[in-house]
């Protein structure tokens, strides 16, 4: 690898429950403090890493895509992204609606590299708006929206879903893409979503702490075989929202190392097993 080629200098994952920014006060104070402390830790680490871009991997909750055309994976190549999608959602999330900068050159490279690597994501050149997927974690991690983004969307909201292995391998492809370009030399990967939660389902409000802790244990092992050893049914036991762990598997594939759990709190008031992790890079 030449001196000027890009590299992944950091990788992080975080939950994106609307409560984290929209109604943090409903959580137990100690839980809120622990979660916000972990976000602050990651914010500081990202600042120190001086990234040229963040490849931000999440789902989207029918904000842009619908069952008439639902990509398993999509890559944004735009120069900017509106978020939250409406002012009403902004009020709900506690995030003022604004434009987030996009890293168009890195996005276009990633899309091309994906195709040449025999992945077939959807291309999104513009019009992609954010919901809690990115707006919630980025409020903590890049509050002034200064770091250009390449959004990657994984279907985590409607079955059938891409397999765990496919998600991990998509992440490995992201790493090879970053290392094959010079437009962005220092790249951070951020995966957002999960852990256990149920949205719009009778079980809503339940948290599957056993599932969450086991997943974090697998993430801490850095063992791809364990990380990808999930059937759809095995994720279903932690709720429809748990399918968002696919975004963490993408981040894990991109990092290729173990992740430390910076915080895990089952927060009923946010309806979510809430965690933040950092790759040992």
């Amino acid at each position, binding site marked *: 690898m030449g001196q000027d080629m890009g590299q992944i200098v950091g990788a992080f994952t975080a939950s994106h429950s609307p409560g984290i920014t929209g109604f943090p006060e409903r959580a137990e104070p100690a839980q809120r403090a622990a979660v916000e402390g972990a976000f602050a830790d990651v914010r500081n680490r990202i600042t120190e890493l001086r990234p040229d871009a963040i490849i931000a991997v999440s789902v989207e*909750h*029918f904000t842009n895509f*619908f*069952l*008439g055309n639902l990509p398993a994976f999509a890559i944004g190549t735009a120069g900017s992204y509106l978020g939250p999608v409406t002012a009403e959602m902004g009020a709900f999330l506690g995030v003022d609606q604004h434009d987030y900068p996009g890293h168009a050159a890195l996005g276009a490279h990633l899309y091309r590299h994906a195709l040449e690597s025999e992945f077939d994501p959807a291309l999104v050149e513009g019009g992609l708006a954010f919901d809690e997927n990115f707006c919630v974690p980025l409020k903590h991690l890049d509050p002034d929206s200064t770091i250009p983004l390449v959004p990657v969307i994984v279907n985590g*909201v*409607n079955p059938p879903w891409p397999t765990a292995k496919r998600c991990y391998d998509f992440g490995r492809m992201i790493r090879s893409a970053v290392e094959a370009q010079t437009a962005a030399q220092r790249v951070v990967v951020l995966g957002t979503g999960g852990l256990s939660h*149920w*949205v*719009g*389902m*009778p079980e*809503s409000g339940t948290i599957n702490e056993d599932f969450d802790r086991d997943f974090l244990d697998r993430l801490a092992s850095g063992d791809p075989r364990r990380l990808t050893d999930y059937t759809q049914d095995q994720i279903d036991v932690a709720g*429809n929202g748990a399918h968002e762990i696919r975004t963490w598997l993408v981040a894990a594939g991109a990092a290729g190392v173990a992740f430390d759990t910076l915080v895990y709190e089952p927060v009923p008031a946010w309806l979510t097993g809430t965690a933040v992790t950092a790759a040992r890079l």
Partner: protein
Amino acid sequence: MYDLQKLLWDVRKDLDLAQRFRADPDTVLDEYGIAGTERTAMRSLDFKTLYDRGANPYLLYFCALQIGVDRTEYYARLRGEIS
């Protein structure tokens, strides 16, 4: 089910449609070609039946909020505690 889910999605994105649905559900249900059990359920906000028939829970929940059903009522209806 596609037509029903399309209505759920459109309502979420279009407040005018949401208000038209509340004021005159039959006209909107006609426009979307929704009939039978799904029509009856949607008309009476019977989210449990729609959920049991496979409606995506995100779409169902977001539509409910947009037509003025709050979170507590949505989950009560979903669990069959209100019908």
